[in-house]
Each structure stands twice: as structure tokens, then as C-alpha cells.
């Protein structure tokens, strides 16, 4: 597997704009072959980072979306009991019912046994129950899964593991200890500007700076829901396309009525000293 260090430029070429810290952490995680735990507010591009990496490093993306009540059967492996039933009824010879033939591989096991280089994305781990974390520990630390009926399946060192969390629940220390930690925050004005210039057609640099600083200001207001990167980019895109001004189409940026009011008020206040 390619273990060459990434650089900011490579990421930028493929459309991911970020700072040096993030690149360093990702490189460290890859070099040490440890899972990367990404935490941060919703809408800062945690999942997108994983997708970008898989694209850039040419890895197969295997994604496990966690939800409440996810268990071993859906995440790791399950026995194909229909096939086992049929096999019992039809065959006379006692072939082993618990062999790989009857195993349904779920994302974690298939990632582990994957022949090609792959990236395993365990998305929103905080939505899963605490017991599920314990299941993950063996994979994260030892890179193996033990199936009671079959024995231990050992994985190859050809994968990157990324976990994301929205922090709705405290993750256990045992899980944290096995990972490299990365906190992803909202982009700075510079990065936002780069994103705007590169994703939107017909935007001038001047406009990009204006919108970037406006969005940074908006995120700093006491809002109920802070706009995510995708929302802000879509809003600017639509505004540029329609040549509308900054107090229109707010529904794309802010998803709350009182937030609209707050936004409009603060923009108004800001104009006053300049009009004098």
C-alpha cells in the first residue's frame, strides 16, 4: 500500500481545502496504521474527508453507517441460515455448516478480508450503542475478528480506518485510546474563500472574499443552527447565479425562523455606521 505522505497541494488539487495540521494528523495516522477518529460539529466535512482520501489514494470505500440498535449481525457477519437449512435437508454428507461458504460478510468483515486496498468508514459512531463500540475494539486494535464457530480472521495491513462522531454521546476511553484524534472545525475565512472560488462558476475574487467574511460572521452569531459548509456554498452559488443580494434566499443558509430574524437584524446594524 502506498504510504507516501500527503501534502496540502495534492488535497487541493482534488478539491479539499484545509490546513497543515489536518494533513499532518492524517499522515501520522496512515504511517502508524492506526484508525483516525474525527470529531466536530455537523457539517464540517468529516465524511467528505474520508471520501476525498479514498479518491486520492485510490482506495475502495467501504462504508458502515451506524444507527441505534446496530449489532453484530448487521455490522460484522451473519450466518446464512437459509442456505444452512437447505444444506441440512439436501445433503447426506456432513460438510461443515460453519465454514466460509455459509458466511454473509457485513461491512466490517468484508473490509477486513478485502484483497484490494480499502478505506473503511465507520460513520457517526456516536449513534450506535455503547456495546457496539466493544465489538469494534478488536478490529481497531488487533486488526482481526474472532468468529466463535470458525476462529480468528486476521486482516491485512492494507486499509485506512476512519471513524466519525457528531459528539451526541461520550465515546468510551477504550475506543479513543486506540485511535488518532482529529477535531474538525468550521473553515476559516481563507479556506472558505478558496472553496467558493473553486466550486462556483463566475464568482470574482472580490465577491468570494465578501461572502466568506459574511459567512464567518454569521457563524459567530448566537444562532440555533450554525450553517454548514455545504449550505453556505449552495447559498452563495444561488445568490451569484441569480444576482440576488445577501438578505434573500435565506432559506438555503439558515433553517430556523428566529435565526433569519437575528441575521437580518445584525446585518442591518452593521450597515448603520457606514451610512452616516
Amino acid at each position: 500500500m502506498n504510504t507516501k505522505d500527503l501534502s496540502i497541494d495534492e488535497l487541493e488539487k482534488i478539491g479539499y481545502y484545509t490546513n497543515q495540521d489536518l494533513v499532518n494528523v492524517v499522515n501520522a495516522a496512515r504511517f502508524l496504521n492506526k484508525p483516525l477518529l474525527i470529531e466536530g460539529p455537523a457539517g464540517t466535512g468529516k465524511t467528505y474527508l474520508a471520501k476525498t482520501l479514498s479518491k486520492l489514494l485510490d482506495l475502495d470505500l467501504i462504508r458502515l453507517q451506524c444507527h441505534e440498535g446496530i449489532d453484530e449481525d448487521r455490522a460484522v457477519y451473519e450466518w446464512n441460515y437459509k442456505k444452512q437449512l437447505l444444506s441440512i435437508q439436501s445433503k447426506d454428507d456432513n460438510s461443515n455448516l460453519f465454514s466460509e461458504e455459509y458466511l454473509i460478510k457485513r461491512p466490517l468483515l468484508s473490509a477486513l478480508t478485502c484483497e484490494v486496498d480499502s478505506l473503511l468508514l465507520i460513520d457517526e459512531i456516536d449513534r450506535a450503542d455503547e456495546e457496539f463500540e466493544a465489538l469494534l475494539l478488536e478490529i481497531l486494535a488487533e486488526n482481526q475478528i474472532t468468529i466463535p464457530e470458525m476462529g480468528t480472521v486476521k486482516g491485512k495491513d492494507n486499509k485506512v480506518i476512519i471513524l466519525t462522531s457528531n459528539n451526541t454521546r461520550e465515546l468510551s476511553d477504550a475506543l479513543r485510546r486506540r485511535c488518532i484524534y482529529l477535531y474538525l472545525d468550521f473553515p476559516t475565512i481563507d479556506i472558505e474563500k478558496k472553496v467558493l472560488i473553486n466550486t462556483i462558476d463566475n464568482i470574482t475574487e472580490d465577491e468570494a472574499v465578501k461572502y466568506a467574511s459574511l459567512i464567518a460572521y454569521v457563524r459567530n452569531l448566537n444562532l440555533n443552527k450554525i450553517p454548514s459548509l455545504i449550505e453556505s456554498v449552495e447559498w452563495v452559488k444561488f445568490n451569484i447565479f441569480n444576482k440576488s443580494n445577501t438578505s434573500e434566499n435565506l432559506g438555503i443558509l439558515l433553517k430556523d425562523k428566529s435565526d433569519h430574524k437575528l441575521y437580518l437584524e445584525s446585518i442591518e446594524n452593521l450597515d448603520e455606521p457606514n451610512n452616516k
Partner: protein
Amino acid sequence: MNLTTSELAKFSNFCRDNNFHIPIESTEIFLKYRTSKRISSLEENLKYLFYLVPKDKETQNTFKNLIYRYFNFSFENSNHEAFHIIKEYFDIDDYLLNTLNEINNGNLSELDRMSIDLISNDIVADFTRPVSDLYWLNQIKKTESYQNFLNMFDNLQISNFSQLTNQLNKKSMEKLLDTTILEKIRDERNKQKTAYEPSELEPRRELNETDFLFASQEERKLLLEQTYQLGNKLAVKYKRFTKEASKGRLFFRKTIRKSLESGGVLEKIILKPKLRHKPKLTIVCDISGSMALNSLFGVTLLYGMVSKFSSIKAFVFIDGITEISKTLRTIKKNEIETIFSRWSEFVKSDGHSDYQKSFEELLESDRVKKGTLIVIGDARNNYRNISQQLISNLADKYQKIFWINPEQKKYWNTGDSQMNKFEPINSRTVEVRNYKQLKQFVKDLDFKKVLTS
């Protein structure tokens, strides 16, 4: 200069003295990475130490602070705190531009100089007076030189949009300056050693360990946000447990799998496990005067829990109980403080806290059987009696009672505090004065053990 192994060991000892443990595992990984990547400069070393050791946002901040204190090295402000230089700055003010640039590069000497200047020249400070550091900060904020400095941002002719960036810069500058001034005030008071309360004179604490009452406005905002999230987490933790086992329905997959042992005959039907009783959670918060700002944190915690699930009941009380779960569900996160502007609605008689009457009313209005109760309060009953009957009624009605007391433990049971009456029936009684303690409380709270025991 390189970071030698012995230096690293010393630093790790230093961290341990400050209640922060660097796991040996992390050190090992760091050393391994360092040797194979040949990281030589001290700066790079510290950077990677910072990447590899802390495992969550809060410890990241603590660790950053420790590195700053030991190595006198501060990381570039790569996030929001950095100033964004707009082109208008180039035209007008050399001093402002230089200062901002220097701070962006991690050089805070100008800020230090200014804070010392402000403290020694602009106010006549008598640091022996028994007031908190924040009082002196506010005095400084009123002075002309302080305001002049911040006004530099306002005196520029700037287009609308750059104005926004400018405002952001001003805000973060104010924040930065305030923290520096507070630090210097603490230093100064430390030197004089005459201030009134020794606990305040220790070096600047971590945000997590800052007393709720002594947090500055900016810190309070952060803490409230964290408290809200903690409330959410507590609610999720509780809900996860109650949801875990639904009502004895057929567990299809396991049943089929079990049947394989007997050759496909459905010999044994497996049901999903059943709960003995559905647990209910009630949480009450004292919002009387003696609780001061602590009640704001209490109500934020209630809000965080209530907004997550509808089956959690929240009450506030002074001298009578009021259910506010419905009210809390209708307001937004940034409107929590408006609850306190409706204080008069919660006062039933004289406005002094009355635990006897409040709990009596709670017992009446809360129709739960065998529930769990969390109380946030200081048990200061204004010299009113608390009857033994009430205590035993409470113990009967609620299976478990948790008590969060925002007062220092040494003041419990002094004056009109009647903590000793409640303590015997509480499963856990904890002192919570800062975020760290609150987090620990939530972490230790194990519903599973509590509710099924």
C-alpha cells in the same frame, strides 16, 4: 534544539503533577513516529506530541496549555482566533497592522506589555480588596485607554463586507486582551499575596475547572454550550437504557439461528428481553437567589435533556414547584436566559427557597412510580423545618435520588443548609462547581446499575 527523552520524561512528570496523565502507549507511539520520520526541531516535536496524545477536544485544550506553561511554546492559532488581515488595514494604521501580524505569528509580547500598562497606570487597584479578579477586569474595561485601543477597529473607513471581518477581528481581539489582562491580574495578586481568597490566587485554571461563578462572560458562554451538550448526552444515556429492551416480542433472527441446532425445527422461541418496569426520570432544579448563576447552568442542563426526549420531566422550584418541560420545549437554545426574566411566575409565596413545600408539591404532581430523581440544589432552606415524613415519602416514591450540590463541600450543613437530612436517602451526593465535576457525574451515572438493582 531537540526534545530529548529525558526532557520528555520531565514534561510527563510535570503533566502528572497537574493532573494530566500521558499514557505510556501514546509516548511510545510518539517516539516510534519521531525516530522513523526523523523529526528534529522542538517545534515539530511538540506539534506531533499534541497530535498524538490528547483524545478529545477538552484534553486538547488542557494539553495545549500545559505545553505552553512548560516549554513556553504556543501553537499557531490556526482556527477562529487568528486575525484575518483585510486590505484596508494596509492603508491606515501601521500600529494595528503590526500588532495583528505579530499575534498571528504567535508573538504576544505587545499584548503583555499593554495589559501590564493598563493594570499599573490606568486604574488605582487595591488588590487586597475582597473582590474577584473579574471586578478588576471590568474596572479596566471602563478605562479610556482600553476603549481607545478597541476603537481603533471602528475608526476605519471600510466597505460593508470587510466591516464584518473587522468586527470579528475586534471581537477576538477583545477576547484575547481580556484573557491576557486577567492572567496579569492573577500574577499581580499572587505577587502581593494579600488578596482575600487563596483559591483564587492559583495560576490560571483550565476552563473545565473554572468555577461556574467565576467564569467570565466569554467563558460562561462556552461552558453553557458544553453543559447543554452534556444534558443531551445524559438524556441519550438514559433513553438508550430504557429502549434497549422492547416488550417481549419475537426475536426472529435469533430464533431461526437457534433452530439450526435442531435441524431447522423451531424448537425454542426466543423473545426480546422484557423490562421489569419502565423507569421514569424526573429532574428538578432550585432557582432561588442563593443558587445565583449556578441555576443558569442547572436550567441549561434541564434544557439539554428535555429537548432531546419527551418522557423526561423537568421542574424548577423556589418556594413551590413548577413544571417547565413544556415551556423549555417551546423555546430556542439562545433563549434559555429568558426563563429567569419570568422569575415571578415561579414564586408561590415569599420568594425564599422552601424545600419542604416544594418537595411536597413535587410528590403530588409527579405521578411516577419508582422513578429516578435528580436534584440540583444547595438545600438551603432559610431556617425552615424539613420534616422526617417528607424524607421518608421521597425515599418511598423514588427508587434512586441523585443530588447535585453547587456549593463547596465544606459549607454543607453550615448555617441553614440541611444537606444532612437528604444525604441518607440519596444514592449519590456530589459537589458540582465546575464543568469537570459535572462531566464526571454524568459519566459515573450508570442507569443500568441504578434501575435494575
